[in-house]
């Protein structure tokens, strides 16, 4: 019999000062965070889409019951402002760490996530960049394994870093077999 997890299974055991209380703590090396430009980009998109929606809603309200128009516009702007803050925090929550044998990716604000993908399990690596991403000099790296559930995506990388990461991951994955 082996214990299921070497560490403790209750908070009361966490006596020593070294022990972290954050289950999403970095794995002995700091998280590499994604580019702040991604936050700018996403904030901008949120702002534009949000303000357009607010404008449409306000116009509709003005046309139907003008008394409420100020309230709707105000609430809309507040919502957009809140989304602005949230989007920035969400982007800052992305992080990844390359270890000797695997890659870790973490993200999420409401639902926090952490995924560990061993290099040996990697089937292929995608680098994608949409038109807006390219404008901002950003790219997304996505890892694929044989499991559909593997959710390992790193957005907001500068293209050079994305290419480096892809090549490094591909090299470690070593899919093809050859040899003289």
């Amino acid at each position, binding site marked *: *019999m*082996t*214990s*299921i*997890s*070497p*560490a*403790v*299974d*209750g*908070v009361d055991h*966490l006596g020593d000062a070294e*022990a*972290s*209380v954050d*289950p*999403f*703590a970095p*794995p002995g090396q700091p998280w590499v965070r994604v580019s702040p430009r991604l936050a700018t980009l996403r904030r901008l998109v949120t702002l534009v889409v949000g303000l357009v929606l607010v404008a449409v809603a306000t116009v509709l309200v003005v046309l139907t019951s003008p008394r409420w128009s100020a309230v709707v516009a105000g609430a809309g702007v507040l919502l957009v402002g809140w989304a602005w803050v949230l989007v920035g925090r969400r982007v800052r929550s992305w992080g990844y760490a390359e270890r*000797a*044998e*695997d890659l870790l990716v973490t993200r*999420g604000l*409401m*639902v*926090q*996530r*952490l*995924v*560990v*993908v*061993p*290099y*040996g*399990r990697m089937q292929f690596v995608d680098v994608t960049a949409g038109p807006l991403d390219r404008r901002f000099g950003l790219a997304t790296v996505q890892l694929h*394994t*044989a*499991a*559909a*559930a*593997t*959710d*390992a995506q790193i957005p907001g990388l500068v293209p050079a870093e994305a290419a480096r990461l892809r*090549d*490094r991951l*591909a*090299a*470690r*994955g*070593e*899919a*093809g*077999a*050859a*040899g*003289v």
Partner: protein
Amino acid sequence: MSEGTTAPRLQDDEGFHRLHPLTPLLRGWKVFAAAAALGAQQAYGSLGPGPVLIAVAASIPIGAAYGYLSWRATRYRVGDGDLRLDTGVFRKQSRRVRLDRLQAVDVVRPLVGRFLGLAELRLEVAGGAKSEAPLAYLSEPAAQQLRAELLARAAGLHHETPEAPEAVLLEVPLGRLVEATARSVPVIGATLMLVAVLTMAVALRSWQVLGISVPFFFGYVPLVTRLIVTHFGFTVAASPDGLRLRHGLLETRAQTVPPGRVQAVRIIEPLLWRRRGWVRVEVDIAGYVGQAQESASLLCPVAPRAEALQVLARVLPGLDLDTVTMESAPRQARWLDPLGWRVLGVGADERVLVTRSGRFTRITDVVLHEKVQSVRLTQGPVQRRLGLASVHLDTTPGPVTAAVVHRPAMAARALVDAEVARARTARAAAAPDRWMASFVPARPTAEGLYLADPDFLADPYPTLARLRAQGPVLWHEPTGQWLAFTYAAANSVLRDRRLGRIWQDKQPTDPGAAPDALEVVNRLHRNQMMENEPPEHTRLRSLVAKAFARGHVERLRPQVQARADALLDAVRDTGSTSFDLIADLAEPLPVAVIADLLGIPESDHHLLRPWSADFVAMYEYGRGPEVDRRAVAAATEFEAYLRELAAGRQADPRNDLLSDLAAAEDGGTRLSPDELIASAILLLNAGHEASVNAFGNGVVALLADPDALATVRSRLGDAEVVVSTVEEMLRFDSPLHLFERTATTDVQIGDVLVPAGAKVAALLGAANRDPAAFPDPDTFDPTRKPNAHIGFGAGLHHCLGAPLARMELQIMVPTLLRRCPDLVLAGQPVRRPTFVLRGYASVPVSG
């Protein structure tokens, strides 16, 4: 068209087989039945019977003709590594199924087929989107025989290996199947409703109510009978080639699940079965997708728990679920799962992780550590409040979704880290995919060796030294072969005649590419000496051996010296003191020498180097579709160029090697046309690659070591020192690092048994730095003696061009040093990102 009793399959001249002649009938009857039914309906409608009958009658010969043509066009052939299937009347399609990717072979017998004695063979292949290459229909004995042959070949055994004997592990009696169906909530609910409706109809004497129940009844019958019909006579039998599952009343299915293909297991105990102690077992099998996964993932429809566990123990040998200690969920989990939280549990041993869940239908998921694809940790807002988190183990698609929900947050993280470590250990110890050819319980493994990693390629020697210290021969999982690290082991790999050069066609790395996209590259390898064993090897090598013999090569010395001087003159003429050692000297000289030897016109010399570079890139590990594409383009051009040139030499022979080869081409006895071209390309490529790389590697090593450089410079006139310097260059940073062999029988190398069919590669560069063979191996010693390095290989395939390469280097090195008395690096040399053929892309120098 009758079938012989000994060979139940029809075979044509090219070794192709055809499907059973009754195939069109069996495939077509459904269409005719549908057409007839439609016709009958129309006949009583507007058109009247006349035109319909004519239409149906006319469609019969047309359909029959098409069916016949389609049958004619369909043929299949089983080769060493693949199954080829040609289909299509108008659009021809040729498909190749790689047997090493074969996951399972199913024999399916539809109802009508059973009356005719026909069966369909379905192959499940890893990565395939749907069932690949269904072979419908074959006679039943032919289907059985072909299945046995495919499984034997996929397992790496001889194809005539008889079908493995089997032992029945489990049979599901009809009574239990019926009772299990009855003990299910939907069936009981539906029955109660049906009874209620009928009672009501009788009580009210109302035909209307009875009428309402008719559609309901149509839904009820399949609900009750479906499981019984599909699982009728469910039998699980064990055989060395895997578990055999057979079931079905109307359509019978026989399925073989090879061991090692099971990724995860789910044991389901519905509430109403619990008193009986019955369970259902489902499995994730790699390769089955969509519909196929659904029907194939059932290992056992209903059986007592103990019996089911016995079957499981066959799939996962040594698994004993009852010894795994389970930990329960903490009390906080009751807020998120008030009914089921007491059931939640998780446990692990060295092989598996087990989770338990489900208040009513109890579900136990078992995941093999080595099959885990990725591990995830998630925490929602409520979980964060409660200090909980969930862990998910991702496996290939299938019924099992192993999740460890609602663990204490820090324990969940610790579980993630522990599972990742366990998965790594388990993967390293896992058996290879050819499951019968080799099963070695614990193999010494080369960990952390990534042959395409830029950090490794920059200086591979520390990593190679670390692994060499671990053992002479280690398993390398990423490339799926054994690697020989020490001088003694590598040497014996090269010299052992039981380890042959056996060409296996390379497969495209682009999954969307045609299976034979690399044919031109493969053809050029299949037909040359380096990829063949005697007698072909002897025949091919003896044709050119004389031209590369030492005596013959020595006569070229003055020519080579003149070329070296001319190249350095050309550098001087530019007026600059700096030049690229690779582009200006290391490449042009050996290319020109070998091209002259074969008789390539001087004006075409510039073509050879790019062709060769794109071609040999295929030897590296981790190549991608772009490398494939360039290699095919280069090979196609190179082949066409040489065919034309060789045809010219055949008509008008000259005094060169290509003319000699062209004269020997006689359609096959001495040399076939393909062999002529493949040999010429091998000589042209191998004839310069090693010299280019050895020179670049050697000079950079020499320039990096001032003491060695001073020694060599002071004794440039000493032929013996020139010779030993060149040998040390070949040893110190060898131009060829890896040479593969394939075991033709089980071969013991050191303390490792390399099973028949497995590959083992000699690491020449690692062996040449072995301290057991070379004192102070990491020092460049230009006067090293003795220096029995294996930079040119050893044994049967020892480099044919070694005397030529040595002679070239023995001229190039002293000429360079003499002509450039102040030679230094003028910039950072640039490595080619390759391991197998190790060299520089450019070496800027001045002097």
